[in-house]
């Protein structure tokens, strides 16, 4: 029950893109086509869960016991960067189908603040191992959900006649605001 609550809270109530503002660059950058949005969402779910687990273990068993907490930022970014590299090599060798699907989105994830931010948030909230794992998954799924909704809307907007100064990024941001507003309805659920 506790885990269902975490999942609902992280996907809908505290959606990482629309309520916490993490990972907005890929949100705007990869949402012009549904295909790229799907690829990015899958890659984020994959990496975020692994990164959440890895950084939690490193923080709990390496940084904290040896009083190296101030090195958190540099340690986490190194873990995420090498994890992404490792996942890329592993997929290329063993699951080429998935590798071709994720394609260029894997290396981009290193500088995706959703991944880094979710790891830092897990530590800041002092979660235990399993809740941290479920939270990471929830954040990633919420990222995917918001990105796919947004990509669908942007594909529709391409067909609409938008006034010139509002075109492209400007209208995209306002659309994101409307989606964010609709996610507001979930507030108070958890």
């Amino acid at each position, binding site marked *: 029950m506790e885990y269902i609550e975490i999942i609902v809270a992280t996907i809908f109530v505290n959606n990482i893109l*629309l*309520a*916490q*503002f*993490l*990972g*907005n*660059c890929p*949100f*705007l950058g990869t949402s012009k086509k549904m295909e790229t949005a799907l690829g990015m969402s899958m890659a984020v779910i994959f990496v975020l869960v692994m990164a959440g687990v890895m950084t939690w273990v490193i923080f709990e068993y390496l940084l904290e016991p040896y009083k190296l907490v*101030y*090195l*958190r*930022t*540099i340690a*986490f*970014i*190194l873990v995420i*960067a090498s994890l992404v590299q490792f996942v890329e090599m592993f997929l290329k060798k063993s699951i080429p189908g998935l590798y071709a699907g994720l394609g260029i989105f894997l290396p981009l994830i*290193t*500088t*995706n*603040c959703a991944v*880094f*931010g979710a790891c*830092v*948030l897990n530590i*800041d909230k002092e979660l235990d191992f399993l809740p941290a794992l479920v939270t990471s998954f929830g954040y990633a799924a919420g990222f995917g959900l918001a990105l796919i909704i947004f990509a669908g809307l942007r594909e529709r907007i391409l067909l609409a006649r938008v006034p*010139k*100064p*509002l*075109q492209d*990024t*400007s*209208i*995209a*941001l*306002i659309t*994101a*605001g*409307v989606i*964010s*507003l609709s996610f*507001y309805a979930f507030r108070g659920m958890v």
Partner: protein
Amino acid sequence: MAKSIASEFTKGLWNEVPPFRLVLGLCPVLGVTTSMKNGIGMGLATTFVLLCSNVLVSLLRKVIPAKVRIACFIIIIATFVIVVEQMMAAFAYGLFLDLGVFIPLIVVNCIVLGRAEAFASKNGVFKSTADGLGIGLGFTWALGLLGAVRELIGTGSLKGDVFGMITWDFQNIFGAAFEPLGFAVQAPGAFVILGLLLCAMNLIPSK
């Protein structure tokens, strides 16, 4: 020479000002701009990291092997982010708490890595300094402006300080009858107001 350094500096303030002209680094832009004070504080922290990393990357640009350059840049940036984090925790604790997770997030801010990769790794140290300072201050005024608009609409007043040095306090700018629009300082308002500001910037032609 002097002229080109000046132009590297001024391009960051207007022609290439992030996030309006270069749509990069949106997370802190949307996340911390609930008030002008937070926007400016975040902008200055980013400026410091950008300036230091630009200088160091440009000094080391002939030493760093091309294949591992991104990893090297990230380590350089992360080092300065830790410096900012520790300094803010020591000297500006209130702001440190307000900005929260967004301070360590400077490390994954695309602007910082983007300038290191696109500019500092190809140009000399003076030009890179000017570029870092220009882009950083451009980012600061953009964040300050967005923060000011959101704070004005959301609360009707402007109040704050920059590291205790400059303070401002304007209460009820629109008069006492003004009903604050809470929407502006909440999450959806951030997207909508940034979108409208971008639209306003598009109306002003860039040279």
